[in-house]
């Protein structure tokens, strides 16, 4: 319950934050909402010597529409995303996913950037940003760069971010005409984490065939992943139940599936298939609705 001592730093600018991180190396950690890090510090699983609090960088908390994209500042809380009227209209998958994270207190405090940078294997945001083919933008002394979501998640709690790099923005392309998205999750009964969480985006052609499918899955493997095999299986096919079933069967293909007290690897693989099917079904339904709207 009581974390180890650390030094606390409040940088006023991104540059300063990045410089501090470079200075402390492995001894330093960024602190955003703190809802991934502080629990681990209280158990003393993590004991960083320096905490660099980013929450003073208030201009990193925003949601705005720019052209074909929605841009979300990394320090935007889950709740702001959950309740954003703009996102409900432009990218409803994000509020839908936010709603499934932790609980109201966690959503009030936790941030999308912190969640993604921590990259817990059962966190919800990774599935959504993967399925939305979002771009994750980061700043370091070397400048700003963008990473495709599919390249961002490297391994268990390991991302493509360098240690002095600050995740600043999640840039999400708006869904086009005839596109639907959905998030289907099974909550762990104790932790609320995803036993399996599947975000699916489906674009339908006028003839009802699948133009594009993107599926992000969390909770199943050591990191969240794009289920390319599922996507490929759907591409160009009519979105019939039989095709959705067949595609969903690939959900855990090639993944080193997690096992814990609540679900063996075998069962979790099964859950991945069922929840993928459910996410696909819901996404197709919404895509059809969007097409007729």
């Amino acid at each position, binding site marked *: *319950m009581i974390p180890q001592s650390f030094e606390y730093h409040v940088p006023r600018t991104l540059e300063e934050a990045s410089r501090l991180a470079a200075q402390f190396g492995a001894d330093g950690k960024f602190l955003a909402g703190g809802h991934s890090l502080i629990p681990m510090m209280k158990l003393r699983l993590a004991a960083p010597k320096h905490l660099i609090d980013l929450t003073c960088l208030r201009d990193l908390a925003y949601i705005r529409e720019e052209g074909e994209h929605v841009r979300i500042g990394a320090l935007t809380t889950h709740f702001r995303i959950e309740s954003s009227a703009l996102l409900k209209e432009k990218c409803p998958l994000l509020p839908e996913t936010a709603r499934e994270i932790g609980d109201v207190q966690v959503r009030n405090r936790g941030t999308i950037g912190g969640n993604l940078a921590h990259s817990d294997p059962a966190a919800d945001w990774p599935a959504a940003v993967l399925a939305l083919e979002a771009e994750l933008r980061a700043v370091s002394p070397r400048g700003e760069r963008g990473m495709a979501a599919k390249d961002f998640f490297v391994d268990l709690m390991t991302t493509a971010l360098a240690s002095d790099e600050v995740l600043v923005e999640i840039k999400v392309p708006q869904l086009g005409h005839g596109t639907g998205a959905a998030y289907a999750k*099974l909550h762990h009964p*104790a932790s609320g*984490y995803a036993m399996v969480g599947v975000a699916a985006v489906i674009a339908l052609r006028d003839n009802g065939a699948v133009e594009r499918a993107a599926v992000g899955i969390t909770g199943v493997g050591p990191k969240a992943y794009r289920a390319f095999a599922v996507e490929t299986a759907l591409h160009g096919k009519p979105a019939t139940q039989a095709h959705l079933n067949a595609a969903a069967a690939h959900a855990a293909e090639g993944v080193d599936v997690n096992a814990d*007290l*609540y679900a*063996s690897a075998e*069962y979790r693989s099964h859950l991945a298939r*069922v929840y993928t099917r459910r996410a696909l079904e819901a996404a197709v339904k919404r895509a059809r609705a969007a097409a007729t709207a």
Partner: protein
Amino acid sequence: MATALLGERIKRKEDPRLIQGRGHYVDDIVLPGLLHLAFARSPHAHARIKSVDVTAAQAAPGVVAVYTGADLQGKVGMVPCAAGIEGLKVPEHPCLAVDEVRYVGEPVAVVVANSAYTARDAVEQVEVEYDPLPVVVDPEKALAPGAPRVHSKLADNVAFVAKLEGGDWKALEAEPGIKVIRQRLINQRLAPVAMETRGVVASYSPGEDLLTVWSSTQIPHILKTQLALMSGVEENHCRVIAPEVGGGFGSKLNVYGEEGVACYVSKALGRPVKWIESRRENLQATIHGRDQINDVEVYVRPDGKVAGLKCWIIADLGAYHQLLTPAIPTLTALMIVGAYHIPCVFVETKGVFTNKMATDAYRGAGRPEATYIIERVMDLVAAELNLDPVDVRMKNFPSPKDFPLALPTGVTYDSANYQRTLKKVLKAAGYTKLRKEQERLRKKGRYLGIGLSTYVEICAMGPSSRMPAGGWEFGSVRIEPTGKVTVLSGTSPHGQGEETTFAQIVASGFGIPYEDVTVLHGDTGVVPMGIGTFGSRTTAVGGTAIYLAVERLKKKMARIAAHKLGVKPGELEFKDGKVQTAGGEKAMRFLEVVAEAIFAKQLPPGVEPGLVEQCVFEPANFTFPFGAHLAVVEVDPDTGEVRLRNYYAVDDCGRVLNPMLVDGQIHGGLVQGIGQALWEEHVYDENGQLLTGTLMDYAVPRAHQFPWFETATTETPTRVNPLGAKGVGEAGTIGSTPAIVNAVVDALRPLGVRHIDMPLKPEKIWRVLRSASAA
């Protein structure tokens, strides 16, 4: 200001302080010079302690002292066990381990520091070298010849074997047409998880030689006696206070090593010390519940009449005895026939040591296991004979006229009408319609299940002859010169609301405003004697003591008033703040009578001044509340997830004193019982490591997992006490678990499913579904 009557829905006296954050739990107590304790605990399930090096910890900033098991040897008594079972092996149980550790989380050393933060830092610096020893986790393996022994001084891991037998087994076994059904049932290990963890503040004043202990406990008086024995401070120099206690559920019906250590340290340093358990420690080192393997054999006649029941119980006791560890599974044997007239019974209970934390009383304590066994048995019988579970139950219920009913288990049920509660719950749920709906849904490939449980429990513990350390309860009532009434109770309620119920008893007895009554409890310096709050006894036993004290006072006041009014005491009644004749022609205000009694100017001859009476109530028997529950579930055929759709409960706890509180007790119990059926499980791996070490893994039920509970009561008063109340604290927990399991098994019946062990995690059900579809 209304005169509170028994049976009314009255708001609680406890609440104003609690809803404003003004109550004081142990961690809220601050004393000048307070030091903080942190315990170094074993990461091994079984190991020899080679060395304990405390030099680094001692040198850490803010550390005042560090003590090891060796330091305390001979200076603090053993952790006590009060269970009296013939032939029971009682291994030594030091407060801090000395040579060997026997479960993960066993305390090895204690750090004393000037803040909780520094204590936490320093405890990591206690260096313990361990030599791992063979571990035994599975109680069945612990019974095998040559199994590693938890206690090398003992010949084997069997702590006790108890047998209970009744009825003419020879005749039954020879009976033609008798059918025998066998089933193994596992009642998994649970963690009580009171929202407030354990905590203790000990403060020793050398000048007065006075030890004051604030503990989050259900049994302050028993704890006082035990801490006196452990610490060597004379008992009349010890005071134990249970302040606000944030839930107990049996886990605080105990005496823990940490409490003994806190007393010792305070005495040794002459300063007050505080220890607040972390949740991790709570899951590791506060007692666990349940954990039995039950092998049953049911002897049933073709018409569904159950004629005999055999059960072999293996009870996993863990590594040591806590206060009542071995006694708990013996309650299972006592209640194994449930609400049914089963003439032949045989139970063998084996208590087994393993390298785990001790099990002990957790809400229901041995009775949920019994109810689970017998209620699963009823459904197994129904399935086997293709009968409706309702019919099987009705066939085996005793008639309401059969009570009091002596059973082959050696107990006598006081009063019941099982038929009535069952009929009432079936009506509430619309049973016939539900069965039709089930039929319809089955055709669509949907699995709806309907599960029943018609439980009976043993409560109001209990006659002293059947209890380890007395089953009476103390109550006293004192009327102050201003007419305010002070009630003392030896019980120690911690959420049940007896400050309210007791005030109702007193106010309605005297005919005075409920607001004029204050109930004090949980302080051995204030309440002279007591047993505590557990076993659904507080109202039925503790409330009766108060009721009787009120009656005694009323007699005295009536004598005084009669003397003054010139009437016979028997003509007077207490009503609306007056003591008056039935018609109200002659009356004195309550306060006038009080003044007469206390100022003692004109007392009748032989009447002592003052208005204070006490009573130690000794119940002649236990009480046996009962009820009928019905659960409706739907199983997701894709994933095995269970959704609880409806829950109906009809409970009979005798006379209801405050329906709102009864409802609250039932609801809370239901959630715990349903939690066991569906989610909760405290898991050790094969090396004795506790895998459910935080609330991230141990699933405590949450609000969104439940439908609206439809509850109702029937009232079959008991004659065991004059209140007619039976107790309701554990009913919901006891009744609900089998209802859920029966419902899920019922849902899967078309697949030929006969039984699934708890908790009914989706994966288990999915595997059943999958093997059924493969078959």
